[in-house]
């Protein structure tokens, strides 16, 4: 079994939902995992906090910990004013975290965030939230974002243009970062696991040799779990940093 490392990212239609403009819309395994993650988050947050005990149990302290974590993240990057975006950032963080961790499930796992369309949709959501809220909240002062203070007037047009380019490239780097990390990690994991099977086909000598890639696979699995959390954190903190620009442009 020479496993194809890309095969795991295959989108499968589970059942059709209908057609929109001649294009078939189907419920896919990707949508299934997004649904599972949403249900998981809702169950965790609602059932864990239903007891409302003063001394939290295991599940309740998990829910409180995630609240504290995201709230601290927002306060440290976007200030207390940023807390009005708490539901938004918390949803994005928990959604990406659950998708990443669900992708690490052995056998059945499907890494939804390894598809750039998913991460790009999330990044564009953040991008347009920043633009629309920034314009609604600050009016034309929002455009001070592109005009750094203390720049001589004769190079200002050049700087403003570069700043605009830098601003426009945000959703790309925001989405590519999450997608590339998850994709690369899952492919690496699959390739090393494939080495174990291939070497195992050579008999006893191969079994001894297969210990090496097997060890790598175990280590990489741990690393990927770290990356799953870390990338969700990075995605959320970048969201906070971008939202901060919408709340306090210029300075």
């Amino acid at each position: 079994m020479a496993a194809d490392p890309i095969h795991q990212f295959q989108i499968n239609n589970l059942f059709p939902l209908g057609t929109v403009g001649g294009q078939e819309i189907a419920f896919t395994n990707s949508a299934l995992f997004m649904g599972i993650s949403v249900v998981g988050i809702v169950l965790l947050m609602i059932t864990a906090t239903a007891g409302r005990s003063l001394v939290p149990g295991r599940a309740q302290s998990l829910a409180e910990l995630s609240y504290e974590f995201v709230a601290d993240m927002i306060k440290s990057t976007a200030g207390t004013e940023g807390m009005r975006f708490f539901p938004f950032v918390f949803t994005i963080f928990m959604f990406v975290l659950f998708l990443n961790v669900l992708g690490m499930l052995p056998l059945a796992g499907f890494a939804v965030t390894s598809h750039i369309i998913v991460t790009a949709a999330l990044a564009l959501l953040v991008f347009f939230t920043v633009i629309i809220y920034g314009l609604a909240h600050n009016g034309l002062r929002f455009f001070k974002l592109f005009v750094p203070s203390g720049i001589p007037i004769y190079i200002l047009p050049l700087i403003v243009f570069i700043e605009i380019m830098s601003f426009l490239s945000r959703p790309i780097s925001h989405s590519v970062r999450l997608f590339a990390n998850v994709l690369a990690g899952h492919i690496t994991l699959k390739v090393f696991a494939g080495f174990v099977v291939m070497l195992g086909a050579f008999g006893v000598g191969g079994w001894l040799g297969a210990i090496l890639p097997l060890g790598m696979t175990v280590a990489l699995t741990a690393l990927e779990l770290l990356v799953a959390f870390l990338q969700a954190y990075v995605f959320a903190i970048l969201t906070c940093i971008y939202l901060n620009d919408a709340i306090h442009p210029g300075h």
Partner: protein
Amino acid sequence: MARGLRLSAELVGGVIVGAGLGLGFDYLVGSSPWGFIVFLLFGFAGGVLTVMRSAGVIPPRNV
């Protein structure tokens, strides 16, 4: 690896946006390939700016 991927994504993102805007500009104005060249270079500059900001070489936006 995470840091390297992050910084390279920012640099490549800037270049892609520059190239896309340049091609679009050329398509609208018909100045091919000059818009592509100029916007690509500006996109590269924007990407370098983002990379330097997130690497902490220059201070972030709000100073």
